[in-house]
């Protein structure tokens, strides 16, 4: 159990990170990178040095000889290295918090001794409201990715930054033709300002490219509202949400903000009642799995339904197909009931489809209430047409220089030879990226970029809120912010920090904004007026879309990997997909009906062919996929990449087509052929049905209104009969409640738990052997018809039973109860009989089958030093974040006050984008948990066992 880091800072720590204060500008205090990397001896090699009592006995364990025991045992010399210079802000052992933002989500970074170790949502943000999704949680691990580029290079040979800048400047001055900077969609006012300045100075053009584009929606808004931008939503205001394949709670965009708003209306006690969510989609999405009514419909059927709606709410006439009539009638009925408080969405990247959506929202009067289109001058959005134009210009040798900043178009266009050959005609190709990618492999200048948490930036996370990105650590490697690389080339003096501070000037309270991480720029969202008159012509175009023949291929972003930019992050790879529960791979998802007709089953290997593209993938039979379709997750199949992402799955971007001015992900058709069987599919859950057991209790909103105990009225006569008197309960008694209505199954809590508790990553093979280590898992069950299934998600973690069956059976008292009601697992006492896991009815105990690799030195910097790392042979499980409880209590004691409700937030609760998890002291009647426990919806899983769990669930309510 050698925790490599936990002890290391025992009496002062030798690593000398110098980080900006939470609230102040300390740019000057930065120490050199070399110093940062200088780990004190004994800190990371403790593992080999350690000869403790236990290790010694381990060696001696089987020996019968007693005499050597008394022999002299050498005390290993452990060094304790203090700081040489006093760090005013760092007290070893005490965490510092810094506000920052990641991919449009305001976050707080917890740092210990200068190392970021945990990401949490920023509660000061009105946008994210303290939630954080899986990618934001996992981003801290990407910071320590050993595959990051470390030094600048030209044509493959490492150079200094000075040499780099000089050579590049020289070449640029010679380059003829367009000079183009390709970034992802930018919402950073200061970065956009910088790029504008550079375009004047250097003639640099700026285009944006997103791996998964939203050009369709932006173009539609441009037509209907005259602004090339994306809509914003207010799900809390929407009584009815109708979504056509839009995964707004999952991978679509701003999932945390959406879920925060959406979940408020999943509370049956909300003053306006529950919302109603109808999802029509061709592939089971996370959002669809939460719908009150979900309809599996192919893309064509979706358009048919949409046209029918357009006919109902616009100047067009259309009769739905027979199989869609019911759906259309249902949707029209619901929408008409809530005009002005409805919201219609589509996940399509087709401009015309999105125009129809806008028209429907407009005619329902939703604009300005649930949906907003505002003028966003700070924004540079991707436009697929510009990208295609760039490729054409490159091919025509009209481009002299191209800069890629944090984008990987070669991969995201499916390793297209077209782009590669076009790039070869460009003289200067600069990649400003964090890690090697397909794109950077084609570049001749590589300028390694800082990770977000090493960078300064800002970001408009919504049209009203500005978030600051500030570094929490000095650059680990010889990298540079891409903005500073450009500044250096463009001859702008100073650092980007100076530029930013200068840019904002007095417009914001700089220090306060850095401290809070966010500031409100505007008080309210505004909406420009709707301009489009008739939709007749648009609708006709949509009606006349030509369909390909054969199987429709649906490329989609899954929750964990998204567009693949973070594919090299092991936490995300190992995060079970909320729907398929598969990890470490993408798969060909086909409907049960199709599987039956073709004789396919989960685990078969198929080849999906479309045109020249062939993808070999394992099959997962997925309820809720349209019958004549195969769904494939994007973001996998990196040919260039880190040790994690390489050779995982197939690149489904190769099936993306450029149609109607945008990249479309559902436009390919093809065929599917079985080429093998017995694929190793690493799924954490292999049985998908509840078998009629009373595990997830569910009711409808109507039934709930009549009887709040609806669906939860099962009475076990002997449920609380105990032959023994209960142990005394006083002091604090911790309990948790999980609202099954709010929980979307998004799995952000799993990554949060991983990061907080040093949960190891075990890899594909071990997951395939069903040895996942997640302390918290999300059980997902299907109900009803396999082609139109209902889905329930249930977070399952240690239930901290008062009559814990695991405790009785441990021979060595390695798991016992604490006085505050926690089922404690004492790692260092565990001998690993696994009896506790066998006897756990919830199967939430996790065993260390091997000594799991914690990675290289740099990667181990992410470990939480307060939590021991478990070595092989030890059982582990959810501890109710005991370290946070301890910390909260200690803080209260130091401040000589009682604990307040909310002082202690466990990691899963903290990250939850839908506030589904409540934790607290159930002895105090004032706490939120006490109120939840008194709710009529409260139940415990497997109540009849009388193990008396401390984790409670609230009945799931569907508004149908």
């Amino acid at each position, binding site marked *: 159990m050698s925790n490599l880091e936990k002890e290391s800072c*025992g009496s002062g720590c030798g690593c000398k990170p110098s980080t900006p204060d939470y609230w102040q500008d300390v740019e000057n205090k930065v120490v050199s990178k070399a110093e940062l990397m200088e780990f004190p001896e004994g800190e990371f090699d403790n593992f080999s040095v350690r000869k*403790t009592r236990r290790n010694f006995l381990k060696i001696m364990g089987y020996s019968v000889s007693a005499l050597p025991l008394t022999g002299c*045992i050498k005390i290993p010399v452990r060094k304790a*290295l203090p700081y*040489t210079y006093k760090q005013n802000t760092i007290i070893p*052992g005490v965490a510092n918090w810094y506000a920052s933002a990641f991919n449009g989500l305001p976050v707080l970074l917890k740092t210990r001794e200068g190392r970021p170790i945990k990401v949490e949502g920023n509660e000061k943000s009105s946008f994210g409201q303290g939630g954080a999704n899986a990618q934001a949680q996992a981003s801290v691990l990407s910071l320590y990715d050993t595959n990051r580029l470390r030094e600048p290079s030209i044509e493959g040979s490492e150079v200094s930054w000075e040499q780099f800048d000089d050579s590049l400047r020289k070449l640029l001055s010679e380059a003829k033709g367009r000079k183009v900077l390709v970034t992802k969609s930018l919402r950073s006012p200061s970065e956009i300002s910088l790029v504008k300045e550079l375009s004047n100075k250097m003639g640099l053009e700026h285009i944006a490219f997103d791996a998964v584009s939203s050009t369709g929606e932006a173009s539609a808004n441009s037509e209907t509202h005259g602004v090339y931008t994306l809509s914003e939503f207010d799900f809390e205001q929407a009584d009815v949400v109708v979504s056509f394949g839009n995964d707004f709670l999952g991978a679509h965009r701003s999932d945390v903000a959406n879920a925060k708003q959406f979940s408020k209306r999943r509370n049956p006690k909300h003053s306006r009642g529950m919302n109603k969510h109808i999802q029509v989609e061709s592939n089971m999405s996370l959002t669809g799995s939460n719908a009150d009514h979900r309809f599996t419909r192919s893309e064509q059927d979706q358009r048919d339904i949409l046209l029918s709606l357009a006919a109902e709410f616009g100047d067009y006439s259309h009769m739905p197909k027979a199989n869609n009539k019911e759906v259309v009638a249902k949707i029209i009925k619901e929408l008409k009931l809530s005009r002005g408080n409805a919201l219609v969405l589509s996940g399509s990247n087709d401009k015309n489809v999105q125009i129809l959506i806008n028209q429907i929202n407009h005619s329902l009067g939703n604009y300005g209430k649930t949906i907003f289109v505002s003028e966003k001058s700070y924004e540079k959005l991707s436009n697929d047409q510009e990208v295609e134009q760039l490729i054409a210009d490159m091919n025509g040798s009209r481009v002299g220089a191209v800069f890629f900043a944090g984008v990987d178009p070669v991969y995201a266009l499916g390793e297209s030879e077209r782009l590669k050959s076009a790039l070869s005609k460009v003289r200067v190709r600069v990649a400003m990226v964090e890690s090697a990618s397909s794109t950077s492999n084609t570049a001749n200048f590589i300028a390694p970029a800082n990770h977000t948490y090493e960078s300064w930036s800002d970001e408009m996370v919504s049209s009203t809120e500005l978030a600051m990105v500030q570094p929490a650590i000095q650059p680990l490697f010889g990298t540079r912010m891409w903005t500073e690389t450009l500044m250096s080339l463009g001859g702008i003096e100073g650092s980007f920090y100076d530029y930013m501070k200068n840019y904002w000037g007095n417009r914001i309270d700089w220090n306060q904004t850095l401290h809070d991480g966010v500031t409100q720029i505007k008080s309210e969202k505004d909406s420009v007026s709707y301009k489009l008159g008739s939709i007749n012509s648009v609708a006709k175009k949509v009606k006349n879309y030509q369909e390909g023949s054969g199987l429709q291929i649906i490329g989609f972003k899954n929750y964990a990997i998204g567009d693949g930019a973070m594919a090299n992050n092991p936490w995300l790879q190992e995060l079970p997909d909320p729907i398929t529960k598969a990890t470490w791979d993408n798969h060909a998802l086909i409907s049960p009906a199709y599987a039956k007709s073709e004789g396919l089953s989960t685990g078969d290997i198929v080849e999906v062919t479309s045109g020249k593209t062939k993808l070999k993938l394992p099959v997962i039979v997925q309820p809720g996929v349209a019958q004549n379709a195969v769904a494939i997750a994007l973001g996998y199949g990196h040919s260039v990449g880190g040790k994690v992402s390489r050779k995982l799955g197939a690149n489904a971007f190769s099936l993306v087509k450029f149609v109607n001015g945008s990249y479309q992900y559902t436009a390919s058709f093809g065929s599917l052929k079985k080429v093998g069987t017995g694929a190793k599919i690493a799924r954490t859950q292999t049985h998908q049905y509840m078998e009629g057991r009373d595990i997830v209790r569910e009711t409808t909103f109507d039934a709930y209104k009549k009887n709040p105990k609806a669906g939860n009225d099962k009475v076990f006569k002997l449920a609380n009969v105990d032959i023994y008197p209960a142990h005394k309960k*006083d002091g604090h008694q911790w309990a948790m409640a999980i609202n099954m209505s709010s929980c979307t199954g998004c799995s952000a809590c799993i990554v949060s738990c991983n990061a907080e508790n040093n949960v190891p990553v075990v890899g594909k093979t071990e997951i395939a052997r069903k040895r996942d280590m997640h302390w918290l898992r999300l059980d997902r069950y299907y109900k009803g018809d396999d082609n139109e299934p209902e889905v329930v998600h249930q977070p399952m973690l240690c239930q901290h039973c008062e009559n814990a069956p695991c405790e009785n059976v441990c021979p060595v008292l390695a798991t016992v109860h604490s006085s505050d009601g926690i089922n404690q697992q004492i790692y260092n006492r565990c001998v690993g009989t696994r009896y506790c896991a066998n006897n756990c009815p919830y199967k939430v105990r996790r065993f260390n089958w091997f000594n799991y690799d914690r990675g290289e030195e740099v990667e181990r910097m992410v470990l939480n030093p*307060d939590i021991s790392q478990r070595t092989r042979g030890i059982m582990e499980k959810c501890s109710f974040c005991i370290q946070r409880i301890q910390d909260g209590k*200690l803080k209260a004691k130091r401040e000589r006050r009682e604990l307040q409700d909310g002082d202690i937030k466990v990691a899963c609760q903290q990250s939850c984008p839908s506030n589904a998890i409540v934790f607290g002291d159930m002895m105090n009647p004032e706490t939120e948990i006490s109120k939840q426990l008194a709710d009529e919806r409260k139940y415990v899983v497997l109540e009849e066992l009388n193990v008396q769990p401390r984790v409670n669930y609230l009945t799931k309510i569907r508004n149908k």
Partner: protein
Amino acid sequence: MKKLLGAMVAFIAFGAFSTFIVVQARQIGYNQGYAPDQPVAFSHAKHAGELEIDCQYCHYGADKGRHANIPPTETCLNCHSQVKTNSPEIRKLQASVDSGENIQWVKVNFLPDFAYFNHAQHVNVGGISCQKCHGPVQEMEIYYQHETLGMGWCINCHRENGIAPPEDHPEINDVYPDTQEGYPAGAHLYQGSGNGGDCSKCHY
């Protein structure tokens, strides 16, 4: 009779040997009395004893967090940039600060990774003097480990003392009451939120 005597001697010898083994075995891994040479010949007796410098002047984390901390070398020079600057030991400090190289102190008190100990909990909340665990530091020319720092030692202290509120903050006990009630009379160590009897107070 001789045989009996022989047997008795053998038995006693065996018993003594076993006791010796057990006593020794119980010390394995416990480094009580460990007094390694340090790179700088620092005397606690001089600074803490004779000069009566407050412990937390140097060990500045003791009331704030988990670690008491070894002072940054700069802290030494707060005085020693004026005092005894010519001493070869002090020159080491100056050299360290000049070069930025850390002074590699040898760690004396060592807890294994699976044991969480928080100084603030004891120093700040518990109001316990440093000497309670670290011994008469003010008399130590060379610092040594005064106690075993083993689990039994921790536990016994908690058994004997319960939770004693700091003199200046008696209200701590009202906030965190003892929960001895409900446990059998005569129980040596009770679990209680106040008294550190729960395993996961230290092990997680």
